[in-house]
């Protein structure tokens, strides 16, 4: 074929076409390719390697989640408190809407784009399998959310410990917080990715995820009201079962009961039976969504 003018050897002959060179180096295979896809997904969740505009929202969410932690810990130290005013596991729930905004906005970035631009079949022509694809995307979303929720807790923890608050208590509760973050990340990612993978339109994906989370929360609040949870300062024990209706409350209730946190007024899984049922539902949501995701990509 004719080469465009700029690559024709110049009169002075400084440009030499060295011809085609084969590749004899290592081929790192499926595992490496899956990790590459994971890394790319994790970066994409924060807009890295993409346009400046796509960095705005994830970075804003990260800032909105982290700045209050800085303020809280600074105030606590200045006031000479011996305990943080907000416990670690309660932090992600307190800013739950921001966390939900992140999953609604970024899950479609990971799934819908590949569908919309038909890049998915191209991935499947590479060594990775369909299962690897889902695994990499799921891992990327979970880790992205984990980082998002861990960052403010690290700020709280470092501030508390350096500010002279009890080391043992803070370490234990920081670990409870991490456990809560893992559960939140798993449940939100599972729900978010499954919805995002059902549409090639990013906008629909964002709206559908946010809609699902807001509506399920709304239903939970209504049911809580009917059960008398809103009238009494301490809701009846049975009202806690509404936690099953919303992903956010599900994790919150499970963590509160599991680690014996909060007061009786806080939402918690009621008793051992509650913990079992709440944990079971969380497991079913995560495993079920993951299974459905794999099924979704089996026929592409």
């Amino acid at each position, binding site marked *: 074929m004719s080469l465009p003018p700029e690559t024709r050897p110049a009169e002075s002959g400084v440009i030499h076409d060295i011809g085609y060179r084969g590749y004899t180096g*290592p081929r790192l295979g499926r595992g490496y*390719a899956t990790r*590459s896809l994971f890394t790319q997904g994790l970066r994409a969740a924060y807009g890295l390697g*993409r346009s400046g505009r796509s960095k705005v929202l994830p970075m804003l969410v990260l800032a909105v989640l982290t700045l209050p932690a800085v303020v809280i810990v600074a105030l606590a130290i200045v006031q000479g408190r011996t305990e943080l005013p907000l416990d670690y596991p309660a932090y992600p729930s307190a800013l739950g809407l921001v966390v939900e905004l992140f999953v609604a906005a970024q899950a479609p970035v990971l799934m819908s*784009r590949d569908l919309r*631009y038909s*890049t998915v*079949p*191209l991935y499947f022509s590479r*060594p990775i399998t369909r299962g690897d694809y889902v695994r990499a995307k799921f891992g990327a979303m979970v880790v992205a959310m984990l980082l998002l929720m861990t960052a403010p807790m690290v700020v709280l923890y470092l501030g508390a410990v350096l500010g002279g608050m009890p080391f043992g208590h803070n370490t234990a509760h920081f670990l409870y917080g991490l456990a809560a973050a893992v559960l939140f990340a798993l449940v939100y990612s599972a729900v978010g990715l499954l919805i995002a993978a059902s549409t090639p339109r990013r906008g629909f994906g964002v709206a559908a995820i946010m809609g699902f989370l807001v509506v399920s929360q709304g239903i939970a609040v209504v049911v809580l009201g009917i059960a008398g949870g809103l009238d009494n300062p301490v809701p009846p024990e049975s009202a806690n079962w509404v936690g099953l209706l919303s992903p956010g409350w599900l994790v919150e209730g499970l963590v509160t009961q599991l680690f014996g946190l909060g007061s009786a007024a806080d939402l918690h899984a009621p008793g051992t039976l509650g913990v079992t049922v709440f944990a079971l539902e969380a497991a079913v949501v995560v495993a079920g969504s993951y299974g459905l995701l794999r099924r979704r990509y089996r026929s592409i």
Partner: protein
Amino acid sequence: MSSAAPGHYLVSVSTVIKTDGLTKRFPRVTALDQLTVEVQPGVVGLVGANGAGKSTLIKILLGLAPATSGTGQVLGLDIATEGSAIRERVGYMPEHDCLPPDVSATEFVVHMARMAGLPAAAARERTADTLRHVGLYEERYRPMGGYSTGMKQRVKLAQALVHDPQLVLLDEPTNGLDPVGRDDMLALIRRVHSDFGISVLVTTHLLGELERTCDHLVVIDGGRLLRSSSTASFTEATQVLAVEVTDHPDDASYDAGAAVRERLAAAGLTVGADGPRVLLVGIENDDTYDTIRDTVAGLGLGLVRLEQRRHRVAEIFTDESPAPAAGPADAPEGGTADVAAS
């Protein structure tokens, strides 16, 4: 038939693709029916109308869909059990658009190179090389949304070549290109084999393109193998002469063709017609040429053309096709496209 690939592989492969009784049934249609074919290194055309089973075959060869029955090997690797290893050594250029518009060609091809298992540094180096080879220069740093169709096709080809595969599967690579872009792409495909030493399996429904580009053609129709042989054998000479004569110099209303036809028939030759001016004369022996010359001269006409007819690839769809159901339906598409391409 074709020359062996230049040796930049440690293991040279004599058979690139081999299938034996490959069958793929979907609940309502049979996409592939007992397909047994062997493909040697070179540029091989996979010909068939839309729905003939080309895409299904490519999917199965990449190990992405299981065959209902039958076996197959790509580069000596089993399609049923070694799909991942096959995909590491094979490049695939899909027919459809597959490029995210907000990413530059460089970023995209680097990512696809890593997805093929290349370490990061090698992925960047190979991307720069490959994009240069397909003819993409300064524009490779711009988002792909602004590319022309020709540039997009080049990026798609580049991502299929970036990991230096032993075989590339190109699905309709000239789709949507203007005639110049199409010629460039076909020349590039030839170079992929002749200069890069990579075997090529290219699908298209434009038969004219394949005649010029491929060493070997595999024709499938309705999931069955119609024919697999060298391109030369598809276009070999027939025992028919095409004869074209001028009008009568003095009498414009004189039907020169009919007159010649009559005389030749009287001389004992079999004569057919191909359009108003071209006669097709069966070659009996060497004297046939003399008979035609003398007949035309005797009528006072000029001889414009006297040539031995060649087969065209399109004929496989028009003449006594063994698959009667799909045969005639393919002909218009292949026929017109053939004219358009050449």
